């Protein structure tokens, strides 16, 4: 009996070690590829927002982390990437999150030119209703492009709303909550940018190895 227990115990241990070793090996082998894939995906997003020929710095090494509970999503750390040409700031891309959508977090990447104009907005991830709220994706609808070129002025605060609530942004058919969440998130990000733009463009990179 005692023997059987110790034998079973040893066998289980052996299997646990073998399985863990297999997973660890695959993890080690795929780690660089995954990091590379993530970087490619990120660069794709960045270059959709800020044209690749508008900047000449190594945009990955300009990355740093910001957080602002009120404007950039409560409790979320967001990455910022700075684009410069000949050491002059051109634009930046910052991530922001909002929980005002229909289901959970909507994570956005927002490109902002140095003059405060929106270069573009893309959804990084969301869990909105397929067929309704997912029109914030570029492959479903052109809606998200309607932010391009817009900027924020305090006197025009009321215009940063969906038309239903008296603003300038047309919501798409069938959904108000999702476009409104995105609109307000972009507005908050622009407010954050206005408050901190000098600081943002002079921030030392601190994302670590990316």
């Amino acid at each position, binding site marked *: 009996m005692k023997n059987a227990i110790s*034998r079973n115990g040893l*066998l289980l241990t052996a299997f646990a070690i073998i399985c863990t070793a297999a997973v660890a090996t*695959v993890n080690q082998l795929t780690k660089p590829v995954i990091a590379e894939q993530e970087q490619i995906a990120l660069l794709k997003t960045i270059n959709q927002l800020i044209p690749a020929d508008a900047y000449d710095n190594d945009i990955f090494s300009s990355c740093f982390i910001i957080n602002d509970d009120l404007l950039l999503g409560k409790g979320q750390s967001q990455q910022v990437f700075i684009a410069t040409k000949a050491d002059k700031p051109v634009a930046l891309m910052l991530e922001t999150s909002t929980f005002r959508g229909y289901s959970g977090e909507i994570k956005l990447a927002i490109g902002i030119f140095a003059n405060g104009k929106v270069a573009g907005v893309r959804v990084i991830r969301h869990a909105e209703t397929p*067929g309704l709220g997912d029109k914030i994706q570029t492959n479903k609808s052109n809606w998200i492009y309607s932010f391009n070129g817009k900027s924020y002025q305090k006197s025009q605060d009321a215009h940063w709303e969906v038309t239903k609530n008296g603003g300038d942004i047309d919501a798409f058919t069938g959904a108000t909550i999702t476009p409104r969440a995105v609109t307000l998130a972009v507005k908050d990000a622009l407010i954050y940018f206005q408050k901190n733009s000098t600081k943002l463009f002079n921030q030392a990179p601190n994302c670590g190895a990316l």
Partner: protein
Amino acid sequence: MTSETTQPSEAPILVVEDNKAIYRELSWQGLWKNNPGIVQLLGLCPLLAVTNTVTNALGLAIATLFVLVASNTLVSLIRHHIPKAIRIPIFVMIIAALVTCVQLLMNAFTYELYLSLGIFIPLIVTNCIIIGRAEAFASKNNVKHAAFDGLMMGMGFSAVLFALGAIREVLAQGTLFDGIETLLGEWASFLTITLYHTDTSFLLAALPPGAFIVMGVIIALKNAIDHRIENKK
């Protein structure tokens, strides 16, 4: 000690003399008669959740198929060496390790598909088909038969995923193979077919209730076909 820990002698479920007949029987069981998706109704959670497009359905189908074949093979290989009392935890460990490896590989090589399948890749671990086949078949049969059983059960499951995905994608957004390039690479984008164009998609088909309804129709259809064959005899 020996009597307790060693496995009883081989006890195949299928007592068929002819080797070819075994494979035929396994295919028949996996693809139709005992189809894991529409007869055993196993793994319904991923089945219903990710079949909103053909691409998603195929991605999960391939991952599940791979895990099923690999886990059946491994379980069959070690079936004489593991004591009965601890076989289940060992199966679970093997399956969990395999799924984690598949998840990492998909993350590395089919990045966008990995993002769109999300949580359902790790959830393959909890898919009852896999532990079910390990316990019911692979632990009692030789490696070749076990691997073939995994392949056929996986194909049966894949076929159901594919059918569900195709029907729901056509109903919901009027396309087929939308986004297939995330699975097979850019060259495959010519496969995307737009059957009709719509601005407001048919939501019911895209959402989980639609999955249940289409699934019900498929099961009814299968039963009707079986009934007809039965009556003809």
